[in-house]
C-alpha cells in the first residue's frame, strides 16, 4: 500500500485514517527550535465532509487513500442509483443516495459532473457549478415587473426549488449556481 510521510503533506493530499478517506485541507509544521517536530493538519473526511484536526509526529507515515477526481457525464437515475459515464472510456458507475446527497436536485442528464472515486467506487459527486434548468412550476409573474426586486419560489425540471425574480414564467430556462442554490439569470438560449 502506498503511504506518505509528513514531509509530503500538503493541501489536497488524500490519506486513509481509521478506514476513512480524508483530504488534507491545511498542514502546519510545528517545531520548537530544540525539540520534537509535529505536523498539525486540518483534514476533511471525504465521506462525511467534516473537518477535524489531527497531529502527527514529523517523520511518521500515513497510508495513502486511492482517491481520484474525474469528470463524468450524468446519464439517468432509476430511483435507487444515479448512473454516470466516463466520456472517454464509456465506463459506467452507479452512485447511491448517500453518495449523491443534496446534489441530486441539480443533476440533469448529459451534464458533466466531478465524480470522486475511492477504490474505484463513487465517493462524492459535485454537480457543475452553474446549470441551466427549465421552470416547471411557478406562480404567474406580475405584468411589467422586470426589476427583479421581489422574488418567488420556482420548481425546476430536476425538482430543485429556487427563488426567482417575479418576471420568470413557467417554461423559461434559468441559470442557477448549484453551490449556493441562487438564481443567476435567464439562460441565453
Amino acid at each position, binding site marked *: 500500500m502506498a503511504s506518505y510521510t509528513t*514531509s509530503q503533506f500538503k493541501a489536497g493530499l488524500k490519506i486513509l485514517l481509521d478506514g476513512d478517506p480524508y483530504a488534507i485541507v491545511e*498542514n*502546519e*509544521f*510545528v*517545531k*520548537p*527550535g*530544540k*525539540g*520534537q*517536530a*509535529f505536523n*498539525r493538519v486540518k483534514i476533511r473526511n471525504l465521506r462525511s465532509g467534516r473537518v*477535524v*484536526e*489531527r*497531529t*502527527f*509526529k*514529523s517523520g*511518521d507515515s500515513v497510508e495513502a487513500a486511492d482517491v481520484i477526481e474525474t469528470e463524468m457525464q450524468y446519464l439517468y437515475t432509476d430511483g435507487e442509483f444515479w448512473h454516470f459515464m466516463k466520456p472517454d472510456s464509456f465506463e459506467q458507475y452507479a452512485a447511491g443516495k448517500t453518495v449523491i446527497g443534496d446534489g441530486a436536485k441539480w443533476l440533469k442528464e448529459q451534464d458533466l459532473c466531478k465524480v470522486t472515486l475511492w477504490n474505484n467506487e463513487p465517493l462524492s459527486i459535485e454537480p457543475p457549478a452553474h446549470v441551466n434548468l427549465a421552470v416547471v412550476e411557478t406562480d404567474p409573474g406580475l405584468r411589467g415587473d422586470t426589476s427583479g426586486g421581489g422574488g418567488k419560489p420556482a420548481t425546476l425540471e430536476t425538482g430543485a426549488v429556487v427563488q426567482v425574480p417575479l418576471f420568470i414564467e413557467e417554461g423559461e430556462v434559468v441559470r442557477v449556481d448549484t453551490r449556493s442554490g441562487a438564481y443567476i439569470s435567464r439562460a441565453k438560449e
Partner: protein
Amino acid sequence: MHDDWRPSACRKALRQRASILAAIRGFFAERGVLEVDTPCLVGAGATDPNVPSFYVAYDGPGAPPEGRLWLQSSPEHAMKRLLAAGSGAIYQITHAFRAGERGRLHNPEFTLLEWYRLGWDQHALMDEVADLFRYLLGGCTVERLTYTQVFHAHLGVDPLEASRQTLETSAGGLGLGRAALAALDRDGLLDLLLSHRVVPALGSGRLTFVYDFPASQAALARLRPDDPRVAERFELFSNGVELANGYHELTDAVEQRLRFERERAARARLGLPLPDVDARLLAAMEAGLPPCAGVALGLDRLIMHVCGARHIDEVIAFPIERA
C-alpha cells in the same frame, strides 16, 4: 507558473530587512560587542536527535578523512571556541541549516543572530534581548515566566512532577492517536503540549520570556545549582511565535561530553545519522570556556515580527522552493 525566479518577499520587506540588519550592527557596536564570522561548512554535525543536519560530500584539499562536512545547524560551537580563545563578547549574523524544517515559520536555510556575554547569567541576557527589541521597535511590554508557571497557567499541570499519565491526558484532544502518543518520550510529550497548547497563547502583543526549562531539555545550558530539576535556559515568544533560545552556558567539558554521548545514544536508538562528538569544542572547553550566557535569535522571525508578516517567505528573498 514560471515566475519562481522572482523573490517571495516584496521590495519593502527586503528594505526593512536591510535596515534591521544595519540597526542590529549599530546596537552591538554601541555596546562594544565584536562581530565575528565563522564557517557555515563545519567538521562536526549536530548530535541533538531533534536537529537534522545537511551534509556535504567533499574530498578536495583539506577534506576530513570521512570525506564529509556538515552545514552548521547553529554557530554555537565555533563561537564558543572563539570565547575559549579569549575573544570577549561576540555576536554573529549567519545562515544556519536544518534539513526537513519547512513551513510558515521555517525554511531549511535561515538566518540566526547569536551572541555571547561573559560573566552574565540568563536573566542579564534576557534584559539585553529586551533592550534589542526596544532599540528596534521602541517600547514593548515584557514579561518573564518560568516553564513551570506557563504549564500551570495554560494546562494546570506541573511539567516537572506530573505523571506521564497526566501529561498524556492533557494531550488528549490533540488528535495524535494512542500509538503515536505512546511512542513519544516524556520530553516529546512536553514539546507536544508546549507547542500546541501553551505557545499559541504566549506573548500576545508582548515579549514573553519563558525560563528554567526541565533539566532533560538543558541542551547546552547549565543546571540551576539550587534546583537541578531545571536548566538555566530561556526562550522568547511573541504572538505565539518562538523567537529566541538562550542559555547560561554549560562550561564543564566532562558534563558536555556526557550530554553529547547521551544524544548520540538517542540517535542510535532512532536509527538517525551518527555524527561524531565535536572534539574541537570539547578541547576548547577543556582549555577553558569562560562563564558566559548566549542566545540565538531567529532573525527571519524577528524581521517578520517587525514587519507584521505571517509567513517567513514574506521576509526572505528566495525560500527553498525558489533557491
